[in-house]
């Protein structure tokens, strides 16, 4: 049985030349575009020639089996892979037309434009206020305390956690529950007013109720921000996203509207994945 699976994958890879579906969008609708992106961990190649556009104010879900490179690809979009010594990125990735791997690009200001929320909530061991205020402070976005207070409150409201924490702003953020911590991390990311929010399996460490709240939040946020979300859960992808990209062993197999991908995908591998034959 296993032998058949393997050979069917290889077979379909043989015929695979390029991404099926619509990975690219019109230029005026595109926020982030990637062309021919390869990512290497030392000698091992993890991502093979990915061309993908992420549209303005859309939610793009990236799905695929474990180890297919979705998180790696997501992290290249704001150069988080720079922190890993052995990781090398080749190809073009542009944000609003500017190549983000250009030598002149300041990675610090890039990350203020493309925020990221991680799988496991990681609030700073400081007060809730200081957590949200940290980003604006270091980027010098606000000068007066009153402005900062307002910004913090707005971010927390947008992350729909204000009511729960407004009376405990000075208490350590680590005292919150998992779901609250993750919403705090989202608030922290929003506070620097990014253009794009990357989310790396944001709900995988949370219970279903917290997950539902965050999915509502993503829906609201998509009105103002471009969101790229990596998820293991196909149901989640179906619920929150407009477009979905399917990755498999480092290759971008198919991209299309969420409806199409989950009802009538074009490529065989995509179909096998969503019907549960592997992954």
């Amino acid at each position, binding site marked *: 049985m296993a032998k058949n699976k393997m050979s069917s994958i290889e077979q379909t890879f043989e015929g695979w030349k390029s991404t099926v579906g619509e990975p690219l969008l019109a230029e005026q609708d595109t926020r982030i575009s990637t062309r021919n992106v390869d990512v290497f961990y030392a000698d091992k190649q993890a991502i093979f020639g990915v061309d993908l556009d992420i549209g303005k104010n859309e939610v793009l879900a990236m799905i695929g089996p474990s180890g297919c490179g979705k998180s790696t690809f997501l992290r290249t979009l704001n150069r*988080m892979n720079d*922190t890993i010594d052995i990781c090398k990125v080749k190809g073009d990735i542009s944000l609003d037309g500017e190549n983000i791997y250009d030598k002149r690009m300041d990675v610090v200001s890039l990350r203020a434009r493309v925020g*990221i929320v991680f799988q*496991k909530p*990681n609030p*700073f061991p400081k007060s809730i206020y200081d957590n949200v205020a*940290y980003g604006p402070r*270091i980027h010098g976005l606000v000068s007066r305390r009153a402005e900062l207070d307002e910004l913090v409150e707005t971010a927390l409201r947008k992350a729909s956690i204000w009511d729960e924490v407004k009376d405990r702003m000075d208490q350590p953020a680590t005292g919150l529950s998992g779901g609250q911590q993750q919403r705090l991390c989202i608030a*922290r990311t929003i506070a*620097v007013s990014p253009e794009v929010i990357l989310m790396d399996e944001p709900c995988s460490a949370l219970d279903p109720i917290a997950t539902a709240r965050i999915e509502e939040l993503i829906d609201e946020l998509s009105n103002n921000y471009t969101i790229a979300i990596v998820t293991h859960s196909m149901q989640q992808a179906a619920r929150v996203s407009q477009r979905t990209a399917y990755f498999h062993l480092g290759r971008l197999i198919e991209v299309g509207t969420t409806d199409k991908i989950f009802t009538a995908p074009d490529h065989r591998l995509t179909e096998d994945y969503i019907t549960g034959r592997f992954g």
Partner: protein
Amino acid sequence: MTDQTLNAIERLALVKQERMTANLSKRYGKEKRFRFFGMASIVLGLTFLAVLLGTIFTAGFSTFFSSEIKLTIHYDAAALGITDLNDEDQVRLADWSQLVKQALKKRFPEVSGRKQLRQMNGLSSSISIYILKDRLMANPALLGTTEDLWLMADDEVDAYMKGQVDPSLPELERRFNDFQISLVDDLIASGEMKKTFNTTFFTNGDSREPEQAGIRGAMIGSLFTLLVTLSLSFPIGIAAAIYLEEFAPKNRYTEIIEVNINNLAAVPSIVFGLLGLAVFINLFHLPRSAPLVGGLVLTLMTLPTIIISSRSSIKAVPPSIREAALGLGASKMQTVLHHVLPLAMPGMLTGTIIGMAQALGETAPLLMIGMIAFIADVPNSPLDPSTVLPVQVYLWSDLPERAFVAKTSGAIMVLLGFLAVMNLIAVFLRKKFEQRW
């Protein structure tokens, strides 16, 4: 086939109970013995500790008390040969010892003969003369008046008061003869001898006279040395640890550096003393015996300790915090300063204070740079020659007078007290800065 397998298991079921019972009692026996040995080791360790502290305490306890004689001092202008206190020549040429001698003569009018008079005059400490002179010079109105004063007794009297002189021994075998004993007994009977808390131990510098020897010089010397060591080794150590852990590329050179730092931590301390002698004193011509040089030598010695403990504290900070900061757009430096350093601080502080406590007790390297000299003055700055507490202990342990035996243990008690305080500070600081994540 199936029959046989079943039988094997069935057979086991029959004997299982008795085999297990036998085995269980053996196991519990082993565990009990293991626990017993563990407890015994702890008890043994504590016993040794108790013996150590007990010996030191009983030996050194008496040094915190000193004996005083009450004398009626008449500031006799005629005996001193002074008419005008402002005349420097008169003051210089006056025989101040007359004040004490006259007082004692009045107290014991029956004493005669040069030998006995000398022994009587020796009852009071030689420093009394200077105390009386200072008193009179500070308050000229006292000239011609009489007052009662408690003056420090000689160390032999002090030894007798503390019961360290055995009167049953033949006279030739002790320093305190029967005549002197009779005088002191008389003073005790009339209430003119008392034991008080020995503040001189803490206010005086070193001295050849046991009753006047104090630990202040060594304490201030240790304090200056530790200040120099702390102010140099803490910033350098922390900065080196941060650089090596966060910013340095991971290649062969940094590995060599790491191996060398670990090795330096194990180098015998006297080697650092030789280095200090060769470089700081001979090459840079820094003042010999100064806490500055001592501090520099001890800095070299404690740097590896601080670097190693700081590095492991930094390593212990979870990478998720760093990623969170970087993801928000913080630069590497901001991430380290705002997030990594505060979280690593408790471990760094603990390592530093432990390093300082080690440095406080170091003797060998300081001997090489000259902090072993007999220095009677209390140092005023890190550039004045001085000595440190452990060296003072060593110097006093070498001296013959009986009182120095107690003083050695007294100095050890002060040293142990400082070490205990430093370790308590380490625990307090660690608790205070502990943050949970």
